[in-house]
C-alpha cells in the first residue's frame, strides 16, 4: 500500500555539454514605491537584483530563502506573470530559442506551451465554479489544441498519471469536492497537460500534510523523469529541497548568495547566511542537538539598498572589506559550488565572529 519516493539521480547535472534549457542573466525586478502628491516613484524595492543562473534540461533547481527574499518574484518572472525591469532569460527548447524576458502578447502565449506554473495554495489556484475537466483542459482551450473529445482523453490520461483514479469519477467534480492533496494533483495535471519542458513550482507542498506531501513530491519527481521536465522548485523548506532538487540556490534580499549541488550545500555550506539557515532547521530527531543559530532578527525589505553586501546587517562575520566594497560576486568555491562572500576564506581559516 505504500510507495517509496524514488531516489534522485546522484549526478548533479546530466548532459552538461548541452546548452541549458533556461539561462538567466542579470535578472532584475524593481517595484516602485510611489509617494507624494504626484505619486512619483522615489524609491524602489529591489526584489530581484541582478541574479544569474542556469537550469539544465531535466534538472530541478531549488530556490530557497526566507519570505521576502525574491524567490517567488523570480519564479513569476520566469513564467511571464511579471515583466522584469532588466536582464535576459534565454530559453532553448528544440528549435525554440529566444530571450523570453522581452516577449509580449501572442509570443507569451506560445511560450506558455513550454513553461507552466504550480502554485502554493491548491484552494486558491482553482476557479471554484469550473469542473476538474475545465480546469485541467484550460491550457488546451487557450492554446486551441485538439477537439473536445481529444481534450477529454488527454485530461483522463493526465488524471490517471497523477494518481486520481478512476479518472472518470473526477472529471466533472468541482474543486471543493476534493481534498487538498487531490487538488494539488489536479494542479500538477494542469501544469503538465501541454507537455511543457519547464515548470515553476512555488511551494507546491507547503500547504499539505506530511504524508500527502511525500506522495506529491514522489509524483512530481516521477513525472519529471518520465517527461524530461525541468523544475524551478521554490521552497523555504530545505529538507524538502533536499529530496526534490539537484542543485540549490540560496537567495537573500534579491541576491543569490550561494548556489551548488544540493548535498554539497547541505554538507558544506560556505556563506554565513546559508550556515545560519541550515542551523535553524528543526531536526526530526530529539537525540540531536543543533548548533545555535548565529544570526538574529528577521529579513528586512530591500528598499534602495546600499551598495555593500546585502547580508552585512545580520552577518556575524562582517568586516571592513564587506563595508568598503560592493555586494560580492558569486565566486567558484568547489566543483559547481559558487558563493558570494568576501570572507569565505577567513571563515574557513577559523576567523572569529566580529559581532
Amino acid at each position, binding site marked *: *500500500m*505504500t*510507495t*517509496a*519516493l524514488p*531516489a534522485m539521480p546522484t549526478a548533479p547535472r546530466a548532459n552538461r555539454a548541452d546548452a541549458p534549457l533556461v539561462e538567466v542573466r542579470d535578472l532584475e525586478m524593481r517595484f516602485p514605491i510611489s509617494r507624494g502628491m504626484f505619486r512619483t516613484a522615489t524609491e524602489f524595492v529591489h526584489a530581484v537584483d541582478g541574479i544569474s543562473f542556469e537550469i539544465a534540461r531535466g534538472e530541478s533547481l531549488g530556490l530557497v530563502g*526566507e*519570505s521576502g527574499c525574491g524567490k517567488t518574484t523570480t519564479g513569476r518572472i520566469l513564467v511571464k506573470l511579471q515583466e522584469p525591469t532588466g536582464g535576459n532569460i534565454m530559453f532553448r527548447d528544440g528549435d525554440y530559442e529566444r530571450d523570453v524576458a522581452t516577449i509580449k502578447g501572442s509570443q507569451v502565449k506560445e511560450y506558455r506551451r513550454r513553461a507552466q506554473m504550480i502554485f502554493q495554495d491548491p484552494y486558491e489556484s482553482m476557479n471554484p465554479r469550473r469542473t476538474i475537466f475545465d480546469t485541467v483542459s484550460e491550457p488546451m482551450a487557450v492554446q486551441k489544441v485538439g477537439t473536445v473529445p481529444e481534450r477529454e482523453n488527454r485530461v483522463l490520461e493526465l488524471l490517471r498519471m497523477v494518481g486520481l483514479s478512476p479518472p472518470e469519477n473526477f472529471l466533472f467534480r468541482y474543486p471543493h469536492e476534493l*481534498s*487538498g*492533496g*487531490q487538488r494539488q494533483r489536479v494542479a500538477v495535471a494542469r501544469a503538465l497537460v501541454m507537455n511543457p519542458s519547464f515548470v515553476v513550482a512555488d511551494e507546491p507542498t507547503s500547504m499539505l*500534510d*506530511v*504524508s*500527502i*506531501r*511525500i*506522495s506529491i*513530491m*514522489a509524483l512530481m519527481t516521477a513525472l519529471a523523469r518520465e517527461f524530461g521536465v525541468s523544475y524551478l522548485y521554490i521552497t*523555504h*523548506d*530545505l*529538507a*524538502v529541497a*533536499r*529530496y526534490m532538487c539537484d542543485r540549490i540556490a540560496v537567495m537573500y534580499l534579491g541576491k543569490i548568495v550561494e548556489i551548488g549541488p544540493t*548535498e554539497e550545500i*547541505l554538507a558544506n555550506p560556505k556563506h554565513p547566511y546559508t550556515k*545560519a*539557515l*541550515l542551523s*535553524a*532547521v*528543526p*531536526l*526530526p*530527531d*530529539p*537525540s*540531536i542537538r*543543533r548548533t545555535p*543559530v548565529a*544570526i*538574529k532578527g*528577521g*529579513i528586512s525589505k530591500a528598499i534602495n539598498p546600499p551598495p555593500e553586501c546585502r547580508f552585512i546587517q545580520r552577518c556575524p562575520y562582517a568586516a571592513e572589506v564587506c563595508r568598503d566594497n560592493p555586494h560580492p560576486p558569486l565566486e567558484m568555491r568547489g566543483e559547481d559550488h559558487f558563493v558570494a562572500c568576501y570572507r569565505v576564506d577567513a571563515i574557513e581559516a577559523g576567523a572569529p565572529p566580529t559581532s
Partner: protein
Amino acid sequence: MTLSLESLKRRHIDPTKPLLEFDRVVMHYRIKAGEVSAVEDVSFTVHQGEAVGLVGESGCGKTSVALSLLRLLPANAAYLSGEIRLNGEDLLYLSPEEMRQRRWNDIAMVFQGAMNSWNPVYRVGDQIRETLDTHHRGLMTYAQQREHMEKLFSAVGLPPAMLDRYPHEYSGGMRQRAVIAMALALGPELIIADEPTTALDVIVQDQILKELKRIQAEMGMSIIYISHDIAVIAEVTDSLGVMYAGKMVEFGPTSEVFARPRHPYAYLLLRSTPSITGPRRQLAALEGEPPDLLHPPTGCRFHPRCPFAKEQCVTHEPPLEDIGGGHKVACWYHEEVPELEGALQR
C-alpha cells in the same frame, strides 16, 4: 486571587504531579448529516512543568482536543463522556463564568495565526492592558500595569518601547512574540500553543521556540504544543502524542517515541519526514486519505491505510496499552512494527 509582578517568577513545580488530565474524552460535532466523531476516547496527562506535543494530520482532532479543554468549542459540539481535570478539578462541570475565569488565568492559548489577530487601530500595549483590566479590574494601578507589561515584553525578547507601537509596525515574528507576552500576562500554569510558529521563517521560528522553552523553564509552566511539524515537536517537547482520526494512537516520552515508534501510523509519519541531516533515506508515503469521521472505519481506524492490517484490525478496535516506561500504543501488532523496515523495502 492575586496578581503581582511575582507571578512572572518561577512557581514551585513537582514534575511527578499531574497538572492536566484529559481522561477518556469523547467529543462529537453534530452536523446535518450526522455525528462527526472528532475526539474519540482520548486520554493523556500533562505534568507540572512538562511540555507535551500533539501531532497528526489536519482533521485528526488535535485542535479539537485543545478547544475541548478550553471549552471553546462551537455550539454544535457535544461532550459525550470523560473528564478534563485541571489540578484535580473537572473543567466540564464549571459554570461558563467560572470557566471564563480559568481561561487566561490558568490556561492561556497561542493560536495558529494569532499574530494576525491584533486590532490594527490600537497600540499593542493597550490591547494587553485590556486583558489585565478584564481579568483583574482594579488590582493594579496604571503604572503597575505598565511595569508588568514591560517585564512581559522583556521576557519574550521585545524592547519595552514596542508597547507604544501599533501592530503594523511589528514584523511577523515580533507580533507572535507579543501574542506570547499576552498569553503570559496573568501567569498561567498551562499554555496551549497551536501551531505557534507555522507561518514564520525558520530563523525566526528557531528564536521563538527557544524563547518559549526558556520562559517555560523559568516560570515553571506546562505547555501543550500542537503541530503538524514533527521536527518542531521533536525539539521542544518531553512527551508526545500521535493522533489519527480522532484517536490517540501512540503516546510516550518524545525520545522514546522517536527512537522506537510502535504504531504503524506513527512509524510511517516519522519515516515520511524529510531531514537535512543524516543519509538521504527513502521517504515512506502513506497512500490514501484520512477517513471521513461521519462514518469512521470499523475496528482500528487506521486499518484501511495500514500496510500491515489483518483480520482482527478490521473487526476489533485495539486499546491504548502501556508497553513499558509510559510508552502507550494502540495497535494489535505493535510488537511486529520493528519489522516494518523490511516490509517497506519490498
